[in-house]
C-alpha cells in the first residue's frame, strides 16, 4: 500500500473527527453516516492492490454517494465521477496496448482528464449548489475523497507509463495545475457567492497539488503532500466552521479572521507557506520560468483568502476552539513538516 495515501487517509479520518466534535451547526448523524461511508470507500481505494480495482471502487463510491441524495439531482451527482471512470478505463486500456508511442501519450491525457473529473477540477467542475448540506456538497468530495484518490491514481499510473509518456503525464499535470490555480484563485476573488468562493479556493489549492505531482522530483512530491495536508486539515475544517456564518451572512474583520485568512493564503509560518517554498524550489530546479509563473500565481491567493477569512464570522465556544486547533496544527506542520514526509516515505 502507498504510505502517502495511508497518511492522507489518517488525516481524512482526523478531519471527520474534528468536524463531529467542533462543528456545532452540522447534523451529526448525517455527518457520521455519510462521512463514515466516504471514509470506508476511500480506505478501499487505498487498500485494493491494483489501479483497476481502485477505479471500480471509485465507481461504486460515486453511485452510493449520488444515491444518498442531496439538493442536486442524482444524474448531476453521478455524471462526472462516472465519466472519470470511463476516461480512466480507456486510459488504462491505451496504456496496455502494444502499438505506436502516441497511444501511451493518449493514455497520459486520459489519466489526467480522469483524475480532474474524479476530483472535480477544471475543466470538470462538479455542479455546485451553495445551499447544499455539508455532507453531500461537492466541496467535501473535493477535499475528503479527492486527496487520497488523486494520490493513488498518480502513484499507480506512473508504473503504467513509459518514460516518454511519463514526462507527458507530468507536463499535462503542471499545465492543468496552472489553469486550476488561476481559475480557482480568480474565482474565489470575484465570484458573487461566498460559498462558491470557498469552492473555488479548493480548486486553486488543487492547482498547486497538480503542479507538485507534475514535478517528478522529491520537492514536488513533498509540496503536493503538504498542500493536500492543508486542504484536508486546514481549508476543509475552516470551511465547515464558516458554514453557520455563511448562512447568517455575517462578515467580520477581527484578528481571528485575519489569522485564518493568512493560513488560507499560505503565509508563513503555516504549512501552506512551506508547501509553496518547496514547490518554487522544485520548479526552479526543473525550469526557472515555471517558478516565476507559479510565484505570480501564488499572489492571487491573497484577495480571495481575505474574503474567506472574513466569512468565518465571529466564532464562539467549541467552534472557536476548533479553529484555534486547526490553525495550530497548520502552523506546527509548517514549522516542522519532516514527520509528515518521513511517514509518507518522501
Amino acid at each position: 500500500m502507498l504510505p502517502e495515501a495511508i497518511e492522507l487517509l489518517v488525516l481524512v479520518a482526523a478531519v471527520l473527527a474534528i468536524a463531529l466534535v467542533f462543528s456545532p451547526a452540522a447534523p451529526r448523524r448525517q455527518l457520521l453516516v455519510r462521512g463514515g461511508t466516504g471514509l470506508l470507500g476511500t480506505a478501499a481505494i487505498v487498500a485494493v492492490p491494483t489501479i483497476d480495482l481502485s477505479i471500480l471502487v471509485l465507481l461504486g463510491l460515486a453511485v452510493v454517494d449520488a444515491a444518498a441524495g442531496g439538493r442536486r439531482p442524482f444524474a448531476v451527482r453521478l455524471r462526472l465521477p462516472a465519466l472519470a471512470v470511463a476516461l480512466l478505463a480507456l486510459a488504462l486500456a491505451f496504456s496496455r496496448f502494444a502499438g505506436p508511442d502516441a497511444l501511451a501519450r493518449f493514455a497520459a491525457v486520459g489519466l489526467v482528464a480522469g483524475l480532474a473529473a474524479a476530483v472535480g477540477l477544471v475543466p470538470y467542475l462538479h455542479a455546485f449548489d451553495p445551499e447544499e448540506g455539508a455532507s453531500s456538497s461537492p466541496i467535501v468530495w473535493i477535499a475528503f475523497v479527492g486527496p487520497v484518490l488523486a494520490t493513488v491514481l498518480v502513484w499507480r499510473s506512473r508504473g503504467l507509463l513509459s518514460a516518454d509518456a511519463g514526462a507527458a503525464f507530468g507536463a499535462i499535470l503542471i499545465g492543468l495545475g496552472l489553469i486550476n490555480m488561476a481559475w480557482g484563485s480568480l474565482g474565489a476573488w470575484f465570484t458573487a457567492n461566498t460559498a462558491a468562493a470557498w469552492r473555488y479556493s479548493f480548486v486553486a489549492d488543487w492547482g498547486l497539488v497538480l503542479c507538485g505531482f507534475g514535478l517528478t522530483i522529491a520537492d514536488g512530491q513533498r509540496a503536493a503532500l503538504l498542500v493536500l495536508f492543508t486542504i484536508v486539515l486546514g481549508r476543509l475544517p475552516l470551511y465547515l466552521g464558516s458554514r453557520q456564518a455563511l448562512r447568517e451572512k455575517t462578515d467580520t474583520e477581527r484578528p481571528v479572521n485575519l489569522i485564518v485568512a493568512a493560513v488560507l493564503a499560505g503565509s508563513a509560518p503555516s504549512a501552506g507557506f512551506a508547501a509553496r517554498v518547496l514547490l518554487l524550489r522544485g520548479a526552479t530546479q526543473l525550469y526557472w520560468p515555471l517558478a516565476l509563473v507559479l510565484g505570480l500565481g501564488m499572489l492571487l491567493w491573497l484577495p480571495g483568502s481575505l474574503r474567506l477569512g472574513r466569512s468565518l464570522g465571529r466564532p464562539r465556544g467549541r467552534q472557536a476552539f476548533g479553529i484555534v486547533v486547526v490553525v495550530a496544527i497548520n502552523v506546527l506542520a509548517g514549522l516542522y513538516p519532516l514527520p509528515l514526509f518521513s511517514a509518507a516515505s518522501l
Partner: protein
Amino acid sequence: MIEGASGFVAWLGAALIVLADGRRGLAAGIAVTTVGIAALVLEGAGAFDAAIITAAGIVATIPGLRSGEEWGLMPAGSTPRLILCIATGLLALWLAASITTGSGVALRFAVISVAGLSGTRILAGDSSPVLLTAVGALAFAVAASAGLSSGSPGPWPYAVAAVIAGGSAWLRPRTANAA
C-alpha cells in the same frame, strides 16, 4: 471466430443501452453486453470469472424485465444516437485491429466500445435507470480492461464489477431534496 463475435455482441449490448429509453430495452442492453463480455472473459480469464460476470448480468437484467415498462428502443429523435453507436464501433474497430498490435483484438474492441458508449450514455442521460444501467456496463468494461494487463488480474476485478452492476440495477436513488 467466437472471440470476434463476442466483441461484436458486447458492442451491440452497449449500443442497445445508448438507443433505449425504456427499462426493458435497457435490461436487454445489459443482458447482451453481459453475454459478450462474459464470453471474452471465458476465453481470457477462465470459467469462474466468466460465471461471476454472467451471474451479475442476470441480477442486473431482472428488475428491468420485470418492470412492465415499454422497451423504448430507438424512440423518435434517436438518429444521432444511432450514428454515435456506429461511429464509436468503427473507431474502436480501427484502434483495436489496425492501430494496436498483438492478440486480443476482440477484447480491445469490446473495452473501447463499451467504455466509450456507456460513458457517453452517462453524460447524456438524465433518468436513474439509464444511468445505473450504463454504470453496470461501464463496470464490466473496467473489469474486462484488467484482462489486458500482462499478469493475471485474478477474480477480484470481475467480482467488484459484478457487485456494482448487480447492485446498481436494484438501487432506488433518493430524489433531490433541500437537506
